[in-house]
C-alpha cells in the first residue's frame, strides 16, 4: 500500500475542485440565460407562457436535484446516445438554476411599484422601452444580492453530480478516501474547500445587500 502525505490529498482535491468551479460557472451562466427567457414569458402578456413557466418552476423546485440529475442522465440515454456524465450534469444544473433564478428575478421585477409602469406608459413608452429604460435598471439593482446568494446554492448543488459519476470535488473526495482510508481528514478538507468557494460569495451577497440597501429604498 502506498503512503499518502497530506499534500498528496490536498493536491488531488484541489485539482478536482477545478471541475466544481467550471461546472458551477457553466450552470450559473447557462441557468441565467434560460432564466432570462423564462422571465420574459412569466411576466409577459401571453397566458400560455405564464402557465408554462409556473409549471416549469413548480416542477424543478418541487423535485430533488438528485432526481433531476438521474432523469437527465438516463433520459438523454433513451435517445440512443451515450451520455457523458458532464453533459447530463450540466443540463440538469442549468435547468434547475433557471427555475430558481426565474423566481428570484420575477420577485424583483414585481417589486417595482405599479406607478413606475404607469408613469412610463404615460410617457408613451412601449413594453420593450419600459423594460429597457425604467423597469429593468431598477429591478437589476434589487436582483444582485439574491442572485449572488443563489450562486452559493449552485456551487453546493454541483456536489450531487458526483452521484451520476462526474468527477468533481465530492467524487474526488470519495476516490481519495477509498485510497487513503482517512475519511475524517479527506471529507474535512473537502468541506473546507467548498467553504472557501462559497463563503466569499455568501459574504459578498450580504455586503451587497447592505450597500444597495434595496429593501427600504422605495418606501
Amino acid at each position: 500500500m502506498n503512503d499518502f502525505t497530506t499534500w498528496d490529498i490536498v493536491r488531488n482535491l484541489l485539482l478536482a475542485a477545478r471541475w466544481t468551479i467550471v461546472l458551477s460557472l457553466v450552470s450559473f451562466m447557462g441557468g441565467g440565460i434560460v432564466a432570462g427567457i423564462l422571465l420574459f414569458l412569466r411576466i409577459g402578456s401571453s397566458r400560455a407562457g405564464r402557465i408554462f413557466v409556473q409549471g416549469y418552476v413548480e416542477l424543478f423546485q418541487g423535485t430533488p436535484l438528485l432526481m433531476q440529475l438521474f432523469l437527465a442522465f438516463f433520459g438523454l440515454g433513451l435517445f440512443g446516445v451515450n451520455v457523458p456524465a458532464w453533459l447530463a450534469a450540466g443540463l440538469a444544473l442549468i435547468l434547475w438554476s433557471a427555475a430558481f433564478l426565474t423566481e428570484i428575478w420575477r420577485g424583483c421585477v414585481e417589486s417595482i411599484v405599479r406607478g413606475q409602469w404607469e408613469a412610463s406608459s404615460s410617457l408613451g413608452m412601449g413594453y420593450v422601452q419600459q423594460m429597457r429604460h425604467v423597469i429593468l435598471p431598477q429591478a437589476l439593482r434589487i436582483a444582485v444580492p439574491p442572485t449572488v446568494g443563489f450562486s452559493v446554492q449552485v456551487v453546493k448543488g454541483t456536489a450531487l453530480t458526483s452521484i451520476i459519476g462526474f468527477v468533481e470535488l465530492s467524487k474526488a473526495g470519495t476516490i481519495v478516501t477509498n485510497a487513503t482510508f482517512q475519511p475524517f481528514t479527506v471529507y474535512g478538507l473537502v468541506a473546507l474547500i467548498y467553504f472557501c468557494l462559497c463563503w466569499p460569495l455568501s459574504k459578498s451577497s450580504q455586503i451587497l445587500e447592505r450597500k444597495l440597501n434595496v429593501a427600504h429604498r422605495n418606501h
Partner: protein
Amino acid sequence: MVYAFDYDWIAQYWPVLLKGTAITVELTLVGGVLGVALGVACAWARAYGPTWLQGIVAAYVELIRNTPFLIQLFFIFFGLPALGVRMGELEAANLAMVVNLGAYSCEIVRAGLQATPRGQFEAGASLGMSRLQTFWYVVLIPSLQRIWPALSSQIVIVMLGSAAVSQIAAEDLTFAANFIQSRSFRAFESYFVATLIYLLLAILLRQLLRGIGWTLFPKRAAL
C-alpha cells in the same frame, strides 16, 4: 429504434416504493421538528446568549450554510467514526438533516427576532412576565409567525435534499428507486416515478405547513 416505456413493474415493486416513501417522510418529520427546535435555540443564543456562545453558533451556521449537504452527510457517516462516534445510516441521515436545517432555520428565525421592536421586551416586563415568558410569548411566537413562510420553504428544501441520504445506504425513496432500477433495468421509469412521488410529497408538505401555520398563529393573521 424507439424506446418503449414500460411501467408494468410498478405492480411488483410498489411495497419497495412505499417503504422508501415512509422513510423519507420519517426523516423529514424528525429532521423538520428537531431542526427547527435547534434553529430556535441557536437563534436565541445568537441574539441574547453570552458572547462566546454567539461566536460558536455563528461559526456553526456559516460552516453548514457554505458546504454541501452531501459532504456533511459523508463527514458524519464516514468521518466521525474516526473519532469513535459510530452510528447507523438512518441515525446519520437524521443527524445530518437536523444539523443542516438547524443552521438555516437559525438564520431565518434570527431575522424574525431582529424585527421585534425593543419596546416589546419592556412591555412584557411591565406586565410582570419573566424573561423566559417574555421571550416565548412576546418575542418568539410573533417572530415565528413572521418568518413561517420562509421556514416552510426551507423545510421543503431539506425534504428534497434528503434524496442524498441514499448515498450512505439509508433506504429512502431514492434508494428504493436505485434498487428498482438495478432489478428491472428500467432506470428512467423508476426515477420518473420516484420524482413524481417527491413532487407529491413536496406539494403535500407545503399544504401541511400552511395548515400548521394557521393553527399555530390563528389570531394574528393581520400582523
